[in-house]
């Protein structure tokens, strides 16, 4: 690597030639504050928090985007720099609603943290403020522009998803983040992925909070309130309680669910296994009967809505399988509830998921196998963490506990659903053993693992030579699907996850400040938890899941049966733009 010599705060450092001042300073152990900078997503130099002095430069420069060069002399903490940052914060605060006490991001807010660090006077500047209507009518995302500091990280995140339904509107002090013709998000082709929320440094964007109705249900006599935990939640919830990213908290997660008063705490991995049974069957059926190919997975509701808006001509390619969350609710209300002695209408089905789009999914049509919504509340990892806090449960002191049966069992194939490539790998594991009679461990899955945006693999399964593609993040999905449409890519099966990296990086996961997002590979650390869990499980294929087997034997018949279709499959809408 080519290096250059620079001087930072009077000391000499050797730093990579192509680094920015911010990166160089970080390598030297010097922290420079930022608000708008998100590496690769938002590099626009707008917030002016990262101002530093460079000898010979006019004014101060934004270190986040300013490249270093040989002999550069940088000062990151002179009185002038500190004063400028303080002044800047005071200006930003003068246009901010400053209602920290009731803010969802209080104590977890990048603006609040910097304000404290710089000792600002919150009312140093007074004057006009905007009074924006809080946008609450959508299913998933709440927007409060009175808290927005116009860092535009959300705009970058949305564009990075190739959705791009938000941008800066108006100009000058009247600027605000919104959509074309001042539409609300729910009236646009927003896919509810929530990447804007995890990008937001303040409380301007948040998930639609449903902790209140869940608490209410828990406290309503006669209700059978159960929760199922999505695969990736075990890998991330610890971050809300001070654990390092990449800590597996499955046992504590279950214990917390039980202490919150849920009648049962289930593993959504069970439904992931169920999904594999149905989807693998569907794939084989399409391959053998000239069905629409490539088949595309349907677990990710953000991706589904993206497909409906941006690729309406390809909705026939989508697997008709409901997502694991919806399968869980559907099968619980149509079968297990009765088996356990509950009326389906008394069941309150809650799922804890890493995803804001799931909130939209529960309200979709054709997701009501028992004549009522399959799932009642989809709460994000963040909401569950808030419930645990509010209920006074000391998460870090919890013992490890096990999921409830009879449907608590999930396979290793189910757990890796939470990372990009996991669904594909799970499907191939089952196909390898059921179709080709090859032990799944014999196959090499490296091509479809990892955080690459678009991955390809080829698997010889008996007579079938299965060509597959795996992608995550709708920007990559768009690229891949265009290539499929143009005939540049020839595959029979595609896994798409709406969020970059899959569910472990979902829009409902615990928030990490930019300094962590820019410098820690969160996705790799979180995904590693899932692959470790898989490696330690005895049952690592979906078809070997005894609970799943029992379900087919006792109730559904065969995968792809008429009853399975009635309960576990759904339909799509060609939304267009």
């Amino acid at each position, binding site marked *: 690597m080519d290096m250059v010599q620079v001087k930072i705060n009077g000391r000499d450092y050797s730093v990579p030639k192509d680094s920015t001042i911010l990166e160089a300073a970080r390598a030297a152990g010097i922290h420079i504050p930022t608000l708008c900078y998100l590496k690769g997503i938002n590099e*626009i*130099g*707008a*917030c*002016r928090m990262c*101002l530093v002095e460079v000898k010979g430069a006019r*004014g*101060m420069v*934004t270190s986040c*985007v*300013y*490249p270093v060069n040989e002999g550069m002399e940088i000062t990151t903490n002179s009185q*002038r720099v500190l*004063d*400028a940052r303080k*002044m*800047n914060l005071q*200006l*930003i605060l*003068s*246009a901010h609603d400053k209602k920290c006490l009731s803010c969802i991001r209080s104590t977890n807010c990048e603006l609040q943290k910097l304000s404290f660090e710089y000792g600002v006077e919150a009312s140093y*500047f007074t*004057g*006009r403020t905007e009074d924006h209507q809080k946008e609450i009518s959508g299913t998933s995302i709440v927007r409060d522009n009175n808290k927005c*500091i*116009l860092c535009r990280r959300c705009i970058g995140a949305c564009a990075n998803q190739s959705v791009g339904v938000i*941008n*800066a509107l*108006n*100009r*000058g*002090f*009247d*600027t605000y983040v919104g959509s074309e013709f001042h539409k609300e998000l729910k009236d646009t082709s927003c896919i509810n992925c929530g990447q804007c929320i995890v990008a937001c440094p303040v409380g301007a964007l948040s998930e639609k909070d449903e902790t209140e109705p869940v608490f209410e249900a828990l406290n309503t006599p006669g209700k059978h309130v159960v929760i199922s935990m999505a695969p990736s939640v075990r890998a991330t919830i610890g971050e809300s309680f001070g654990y390092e990213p990449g800590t597996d908290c499955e046992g504590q997660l279950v214990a917390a669910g039980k202490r919150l008063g849920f009648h049962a705490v289930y593993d959504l991995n069970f439904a992931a296994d169920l999904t594999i049974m149905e989807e693998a069957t569907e794939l084989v059926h399409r391959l053998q009967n000239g069905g629409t190919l490539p088949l595309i997975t349907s677990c990710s509701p953000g991706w589904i809505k993206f497909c409906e808006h941006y690729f309406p001509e390809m909705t026939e390619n989508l697997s008709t399988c409901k997502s694991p969350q919806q399968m869980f609710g559907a099968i619980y209300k149509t079968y297990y509830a009765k088996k356990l002695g509950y009326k389906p209408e008394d069941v309150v089905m809650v799922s804890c998921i890493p995803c804001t789009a799931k909130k939209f999914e529960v309200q979709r049509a054709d997701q009501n196998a028992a004549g009522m919504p399959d799932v009642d509340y989809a709460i994000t990892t963040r909401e569950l963490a808030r419930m645990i806090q509010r209920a006074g449960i000391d998460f870090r002191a919890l013992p490890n506990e096990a999921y409830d049966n009879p449907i608590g069992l999930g396979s290793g194939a189910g757990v890796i659903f939470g990372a990009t490539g996991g669904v594909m790998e799970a499907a191939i594991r089952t196909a390898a053993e059921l179709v080709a009679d090859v032990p799944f461990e014999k196959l090499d899955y490296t091509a479809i693992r990892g955080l690459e945006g678009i991955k390809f693999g080829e698997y010889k399964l008996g007579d079938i030579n299965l060509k597959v593609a795996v992608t995550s993040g709708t920007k990559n999905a768009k690229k891949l699907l265009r290539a499929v449409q143009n005939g540049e890519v020839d595959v029979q099966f595609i896994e798409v996850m709406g969020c970059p990296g899959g569910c472990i990086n979902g829009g409902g996961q615990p928030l990490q400040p930019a300094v962590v997002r820019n410098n820690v590979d969160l996705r790799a650390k979180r995904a590693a938890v899932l692959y470790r869990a898989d490696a330690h499980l005895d049952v690592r294929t979906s078809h070997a899941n005894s609970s799943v087997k029992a379900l087919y034997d006792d109730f559904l018949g065969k995968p792809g049966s008429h009853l399975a279709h009635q309960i576990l499959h759904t339909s799509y809408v060609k939304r267009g733009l």
Partner: protein
Amino acid sequence: MVRSHVLVCGGTGCHASGSQAVIDTMKAEIEKAGLANEVQVVQTGCFGLCALGPIMVIYPEGTFYSSIHQADVAEIVSEHLLKGRVVERLVYKETKTHQAVHSLNDTNFYKKQKRVALRNCGLINPEQIDEYIAMDGYAALGKVLTEMKPQQVIDTIKASGLRGRGGGGFPTGNKWQFAANSVSDKKYVVCNADEGDPGAFMDRSLLEGDPHAIIEAMAIAAYAIGADEGFIYVRAEYPIAVSRLQLAIDQARAYGLLGKRIFDTDFCFDLHIRLGAGAFVCGEETALLTSIEGHRGEPRPRPPFPAVKGLFGKPTIINNVETYANVAQIILRGPEWFASMGSEKSKGTKVFALGGKITNTGLVEIPMGTTLREVVEEIGGGVPGGKKFKAAQTGGPSGGCIPASLIDTPIDYDNLLAIGSMMGSGGLIVMDEDNCMVDIAKFFLEFTVDESCGKCAPCRIGTLRLLEILDKITKGQGTLEDVDKLEELSNFIKAGSLCGLGQTAPNPVLSTLRYFRDEYMAHVVDKKCPAGVCKDLLTININPDKCVGCKMCMKVCPTSAIFITDEVKPGKKLPYLCIDQSKCIKCGACISKCKFDAIYKK
């Protein structure tokens, strides 16, 4: 055989004061008089003396008529063109002494000017490429393509000392060198014609009066850096400029001066017009490029500079209209000729739009280094109405106010910066004793607050907070802390903003604070506006000794604030009048109505 040419200004100012009607009538009258074959009417670009428009010059005599109305045309045709008798009453007063008519160039307005960029404005018909070619047009392009290597062109521009006329004053040759040094399969040249300073119309006049000069210079620049495509980004609010530019591009294409294999060389170059939608910030180069690319016009951080990574990510040079207007002349007449004009570090001339409290409102081109006094008092004809010169604002909303004490400052880039103002694109607004400097700062801040793009926090929020503090001060609610805060915030916005708009927005505040601090103090401490402008700080009163009780003021008062007292002063027939201050809105209608000078502001 044409024996007479009648040049009528078709520039912005004259167009607004009715030159089109004058031209149409002129043509009809000439036709009627049977002179159609002998007299040719030419619509030209701007002469500069906009205050006296519409302007007409008749050659070969060179008679300079000003403020011509449609109704005067018949007389000019029958007297001047038919009988050869100058219509004395319409001749510009300064060109007429003791029956003799002088040359236009000897008038105060023109004699200190040096028209290089504006050389063809007011002389040729901008809609005829042949007229441009007759003035050596496209000779420079021919010369560089057939006789010079690209590096020689760049060296020539460097040697001339030409600096960017859009405000920054960056050496043009260096900019071209950077772009030439960038290796790329594609490069662009861009012309910044998004002139947005209030009251400035230099670029507009150039585009309207001599569009081919810009096209030729852009082609030369393209050759120098290795580009084959160019864009002119011009305000949609300049319809005449846009249509003449498009006409000029079409004509140049038809003559093979744009397109493939120009002058039968391997050089290919074509040009497109892009219309700006009126955002001031799009005059900032990176915002302009972003806008051409089809995005919201917002600046982006530099580096990378456009010469390295510009339009569509390719090396791009972007120069202002006036910068380009000098290029062909430098090539033809040599860099030494250009460098012989101006001051040590600022070569050549600069066009200014004179406005405000000055007699000769209009467009002037002066050698760099001309003093402000020469511009205001000689060329501009001084402050009208016998008022005292108080300050001049250069550089538009980004500039600062230069006080009377510095009126002998030679105008160039470095001098203006040193005294807290800047060259800017060339707006020059004169203020007299009736202008309140706090109010002036507020005026310019209102503009920048409106025009801030909203991307970076210091400009988006900071300029509004400045304006709010200024507003407080003009309302008499300001404190000494506010004055300190103004200064502190101004300095931060300058140092901390993303682009030139924010970095210069506080200049009007800082320069007025520097030179007119006493006026701020008068507002804050004494709660008085010395210039009598800030309404909240003054009252309107009636002098009982002068009032005759005629009640004319009562009739015009929109709020019925004036009442009749019950006291008749000695020597008066009627009781005097008085103003109820709680009702008065200080509109001043009563003052203008009173014939007895009895009402005054305090």
